[in-house]
């Protein structure tokens, strides 16, 4: 129940895009059509499910103060916390590469639809953001971290698909010229953000 709560919370209440503006760059660049948005969304969910738990384990057993105590009592004082950024990004980059190779080998059909998005993802802040929030909020179990990874990725996908759908329709509307494209997308995102705020405080 706790986990389900966390899942719902990370999709709706703490939505990456609407509450923290994470992953905005690719969000703005790719949200022109629903089809590509779904593709990128799935890729983000996919990578998020893999990288957040992996980074969780790395954080727990290597980086946190005292994490190395399993190597022996003399390592109990070692604090490698300052390496977390570089470790996370390295893991994300290599995971993305691995996933790309695995998908290419085992499922060419999936590779054809997801393939072009995967390289984009290594520098998508939603992925690094997911890992950093996981670290910041000090999730205690692997299950919590995995559920958070899934939920936050899913929330990002929901956001990009919603906005892409609106953007597809709005091309036929008479938007003031200077606002066309980028400007109106910002405003739409802001308004959906306000709508999403009404989820605040929901606890199951």
């Amino acid at each position: 129940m706790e986990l389900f709560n966390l899942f719902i919370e990370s999709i709706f209440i703490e939505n990456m895009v609407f509450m923290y503006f994470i992953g905005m760059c690719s969000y703005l660049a790719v949200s022109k059509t629903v089809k590509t948005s779904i593709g990128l969304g799935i890729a983000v969910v996919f990578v998020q499910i893999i990288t957040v738990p992996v980074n969780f384990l790395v954080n727990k057993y290597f980086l946190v103060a005292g994490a190395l105590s399993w190597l022996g009592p003399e390592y109990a004082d070692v604090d490698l916390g300052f390496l977390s950024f570089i470790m996370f990004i390295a893991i994300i980059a290599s995971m993305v590469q691995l996933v790309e190779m695995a998908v290419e080998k085992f499922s060419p059909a999936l590779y054809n639809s997801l393939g072009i998005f995967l390289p984009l993802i290594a520098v998508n802040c939603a992925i690094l953001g997911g890992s950093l929030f996981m670290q910041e909020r000090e999730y205690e179990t692997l299950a919590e971290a995995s559920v958070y990874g899934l939920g936050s990725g899913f929330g990002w996908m929901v956001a990009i698909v919603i906005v892409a759908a609106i953007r597809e329709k709005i091309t036929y509307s008479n938007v003031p010229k200077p606002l066309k494209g980028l400007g109106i997308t910002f405003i739409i995102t802001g308004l959906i953000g306000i709508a999403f705020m009404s989820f605040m405080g929901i606890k199951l």
Partner: protein
Amino acid sequence: MNKNGNLYIFTYASVLVVGVAVVLTVASISLKPFQDKNVRIEKMQNILASIGIQSTAKNAEQIYDSKISEELIVSVDGQVTSVYENGKFTKGNLRAFDVDLKKELSSVQKTKKGNLPIFVADIDGKKYYIIPLLGKGLWSSIWGNIALEDDLNTVYGANFDHKSETPGLGAEIAQKPKAGEKVFSDQFKGKKIFDDASDFKSISVVKGGVANQKAIALDNGVDAISGGTLTSNGVTDMIKDCLVNYVNFIKTQKSSNESGN
């Protein structure tokens, strides 16, 4: 030299990684003392704020040393296991200041055992007991300190802080005291954590004004922040969950005070 040969790439990567690692380690080791000091000073400032002393980063350490006379560690069943007094241990060997509250609270929850910290302040010959709090608000962790007068019932003061509550709403719990204005933490002064029958009641943060409530006595409730209901609930839970661990200690302390008189 072939820049795309495997040997070159491999050597290049290794040199880069070693170089980066050296720079980072040097930076981390040389900056660590400053960072640790910041964390300690902030903790001291928070503890002092609960007894109404505002300190700056510069003088916090000095004021802390002069005002906080004892640091106690107590167990859930009320035994004092460690006393650190005026710079030295008179019992045990654990400073309340060095306790990781989060770890102890979760151990209390799981095993009913833990090292609970209490700070005793001595101001003009009067003793105040400061109990650190830690809990969850709407978004993320909230924490604070609550200071009790020497009857271990009446609240002398409190302060709260948060990591990421909504600015302007829930975040108002952390408002610093201002002259001529009643901020959230001021409301706690004079409230009681036990009811008339000396049962533990904690202090609840209630919506819609304490005066209008029947279930909660005026002494055991404060008004919630408007628009910050969920953060306020978090504060209520935090106070209750943290203070309840000290009830045994408070009761033993009270009875020894009474027999001492």
